[in-house]
């Protein structure tokens, strides 16, 4: 259980985090979402005591991180997979962490096995690792002490499609067995697929949070009907705005139950009715963070998403 209460961090006149509050619950994957520079990393760094907060508190299982006697056994942390000594082998990197935590020697080989680094790869220096291999090594370090909380900053970076799927399975399984996972990303689809809860941050402020299912519901319903104009007017009369989609579709800003009721009352046949999922979070994300999106970022967004979809498939 992670609790962040009113955390604020200012650097001179710049506010990196402003009154940030949220929790990450055991048994759930909490996605921490925001564009680059929104304050995700600052918040996570404050959480693990690497950066001091200007005000506010961050606790893990009720204790401040710096008060944990042997943090590695309670919290697995991966903030930056590139931040590893280039001259150490992968195995040695894990061994150093294993010794700090006071764990049995065998844990190192178990973890190498878990993240699928071969014996040959583990004997290579980290400078010769790809970003994907560094991510695997970082995840191995985070899981070494069998912690009950995982804090990962952009863990999918550099992983290949199979690696992303593997990571997703690993985190899902971890949360299903009662672990708390806090996972940051700017990759919308990655988060949308894996997270149970979402926290969206923009320019240092939390702009949305809650269960994913709840947040996505606000994206509305998609329906197809033989009498589009009639139904659009009926929806408007009921206070629900809608916009035409395709030949006979409507995107209504209400959940499917409400739209179904209105359609039934109006007496028009509905061919299809479902929650508007595709890009729901993306719409919300772009909308919530519109003021901070640079043009180039917006332009690149579809390309990134496309890659991600490829990865998901």
């Amino acid at each position, binding site marked *: 259980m992670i609790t962040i209460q009113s955390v604020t961090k200012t650097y001179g006149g710049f506010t990196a985090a402003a009154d940030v509050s949220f929790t990450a619950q*055991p048994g759930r994957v909490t996605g921490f979402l925001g564009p680059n520079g929104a304050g995700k990393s600052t918040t996570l760094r404050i959480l693990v*005591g690497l950066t001091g907060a200007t005000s506010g508190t961050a606790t893990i299982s009720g204790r401040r991180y710096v008060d944990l006697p042997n943090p590695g*056994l309670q919290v697995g942390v991966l*903030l930056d997979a590139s931040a590893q000594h280039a*001259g150490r082998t992968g195995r040695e990197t894990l061994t150093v962490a294993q010794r*700090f935590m006071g764990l049995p020697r065998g844990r190192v080989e178990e973890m190498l096995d878990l993240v699928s680094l071969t014996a040959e790869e583990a004997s290579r220096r980290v400078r010769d690792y790809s970003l994907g291999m560094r991510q695997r090594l970082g995840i191995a370090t985070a899981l070494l002490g069998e912690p*009950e909380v995982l804090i990962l900053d952009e863990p999918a970076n550099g992983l290949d499609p199979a690696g992303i799927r593997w990571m997703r399975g*690993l985190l899902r399984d971890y949360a299903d067995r009662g672990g708390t996972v806090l996972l940051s990303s700017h990759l919308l689809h990655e988060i949308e697929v894996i997270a149970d809860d979402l926290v969206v941050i923009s320019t240092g402020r939390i702009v949305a949070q809650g269960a994913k299912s709840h947040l996505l519901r606000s994206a509305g319903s998609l329906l197809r009907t033989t009498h589009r104009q009639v139904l659009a007017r009926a929806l408007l009369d009921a206070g629900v705005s809608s916009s035409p989609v395709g030949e006979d579709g409507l995107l209504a800003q209400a959940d499917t139950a409400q739209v179904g009721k209105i359609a039934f009352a109006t007496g028009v046949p509905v061919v299809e009715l479902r929650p508007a999922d595709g890009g729901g979070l993306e719409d919300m994300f772009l909308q919530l963070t519109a003021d901070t999106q640079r043009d180039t970022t917006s332009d690149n967004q579809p390309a990134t998403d496309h890659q991600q979809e490829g990865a998901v498939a």
Partner: protein
Amino acid sequence: MTTLDTASGTPASTRATHRRIPLSRIITTELRKMFDTRSGFWLMASIGILALLATVAVILFASHGQLTYSTFTSAINIPMTVVLPVIAILSVTSEWSQRSGLTTFTLIPHRGRVIAAKAIACVGVAVVTIPLAFGIGALGNLVGTAIAGVDPVWDLTISNLLAIVLANVLGMLFGFTLGVLIRNSVGALVAYFVYQFLLPTLALILAASQDWFRNLQPWVDFDYAQSALFNGALTTQQWTHLAITGTVWLVIPMTIGLLLVTKAEVK
């Protein structure tokens, strides 16, 4: 791929309260980190190799009259005054330059403990390697004099040797201090070499030309005050010089460095 269940227990399992990581474990692990990279290993190995080379050089080139134990130890001491501080500097700065500090300071969220452990590990390295190097020198003295057909001369007392160990430990700690203060490998190394090779020359020139500095030098020049350790027993005044210059060059910068380290962001 391996499933999580086989390799990792239940993450939510309630555990007995964990013990605080003992300082001894941080020290031994930091010690390991000084050897476990190729550069770290060869730096350590170079102490032995250079001590051996220096000993051989003395045997080859020293005249019979010069073949005394102190000739060997001073020859061995030259590479050591360079290598030991470099080891100390890199043990600190690599956490920033190599960014491994992100993991270290996350696993041990008390930077003062990590720095203290590193300092103790450094002193440990000095205390073990210097007698080892002196041992090589002693062998050299036996072999060299046997080859030359003269009696070996042991012209250093135990207190002389201890003073040399102290001088090297102080030199190493000065390098360590620079590492803590600067937190960048290249910057700290350059600063150390300026201190070690440029400043003494400048001080020498200044002392030769300016009377006021010649009188002041023992009270401000750490290197000068340390040099007394290589030349036999220290007088009370020389100890005072060492204490005062040590405070100025070691204790104060170290205090500032520690304050900076606890505040500095680890990127």
